[in-house]
């Protein structure tokens, strides 16, 4: 269970094979995986490894939100 980071994905990502692939390839700590062509999900056990590098935000602009749970009240 991730304690520090949550990653929210825009449902519009599903079906966009290029963006899904870009996300999987962009993350250096394997937070994204593609269970099928045109789909992307987050890997729960890797979420806390997020280095806040923003590569996912650049790979899929506006479609990914990284939430720092420790900054939330």
């Amino acid at each position, binding site marked *: 269970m991730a*304690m520090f980071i949550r990653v929210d994905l825009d449902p519009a990502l599903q079906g966009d094979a290029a963006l899904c692939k870009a996300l999987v390839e962009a993350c250096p700590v394997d937070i994204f995986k593609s269970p099928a062509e045109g789909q992307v999900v987050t890997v729960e056990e890797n979420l806390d490894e997020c280095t806040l590098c923003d590569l996912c935000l650049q790979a899929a602009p506006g479609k990914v939100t990284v939430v720092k749970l420790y900054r939330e009240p």
Partner: protein
Amino acid sequence: MRFYEYESKRILAKAGIPLPKSHFCTTAEQAREAAVAIGGPVVVKSQVLSGGRMKAGGVKFADTPDEAAKHAADILVLPIKDLLPVGVLVEEKQQVVQEYYAAVTYDGRAKRPVIIFSDMGGIDIEEVAEQHPEHLSRTHFSALRPFSDYIAKTAVSNVGITGNDLTALTRIVSGLTRLFLDRDMTLAEINPIGKLADGRIIALDCHADMEQEAQRQHLDLLKDLGLVGDEKRQARPPTDFEMEAERIDGADPRGVAGNLTEFDGDLGLIIGAGGGSLTLFDAVRAAGGKPANYCEIGGNPSVSKAANLTKLIVSRPNVKKIAVMMNVVSNTRVDIVARGVVKGCIEAGFNPAEKIALFRIPGSWEGEGFAILEKYGVPYVDRTVSMDEAARIAVENMKKA
């Protein structure tokens, strides 16, 4: 890399230091043959890397070859501090009329090598230093300039030795020092050097430690001793705790979170940063703390690696709290380590606010790191608090518990 006594003596012999006749043996029969070859009373000595051999029954005197064989048979199966000997050294027994001590090592405070010499050998040199300081000399020298016999002579004469003894001892101390420098030793020690009834002066027992990283430069010597490069020697076998830490470190290539050594204290340490781990370990002890372990963390370990190391340490029954401390770090993310140690505590069933005595890692991404610590109520300090002061605070918080 620590050498066994029989190996150290072979190294000393190459340096021209006089030694008693001796044979390394791995069976009782070999010990009998060695005693026959020596042709007189012998001493049979366990070859283990730990100290305290005499008290443990690992050193015995024999007047006959049969007695030597019997002692060897006993010693070969006698563990000393949980270590079985790799063999025995059967050595000519000597009639000693005076014992001396000589060692060459590095003085960390002076940042120079030092020759330590005493005319009270055969006993703990720390005891001599405390109770008979006038019988001990400390002579610093340069590791960069060529070594001169004059320095060795000064070390010996500083405890009042003159005449033939001064000449003979100078030769031994000079040889030991050149060996120390030429072979990248961290310690070269002879204790005791014995003056025999016939006036000869020889090395009776010795101890040599080579810098681990220098082994590849001395393959000629190691091959002569029948050793291969990169051999690791430890004074005791690794504990389960240490092996599990090594497994955690090896399982994930990201950064370092391991190299753990177990101690019997109650304050777990997760420490590091360019020598910071050694400084912090010493600082904790200087503040009256009792470390449960030494370990190293750095080079940006993953959250899971830091968490697994933390879980391992906090799960030890003797560990009451942990201190997570580093020097200012640029190559290790503060927030990643903070996540790891907080997560490790929680996964082990502890409240990080109670289990972590202090977190002191200033450096990259410290703002995010401190936010995590505040969220979980973990006490922390920033770079305005020195490592010494942080260690003191950690020990104080530990004592409050």
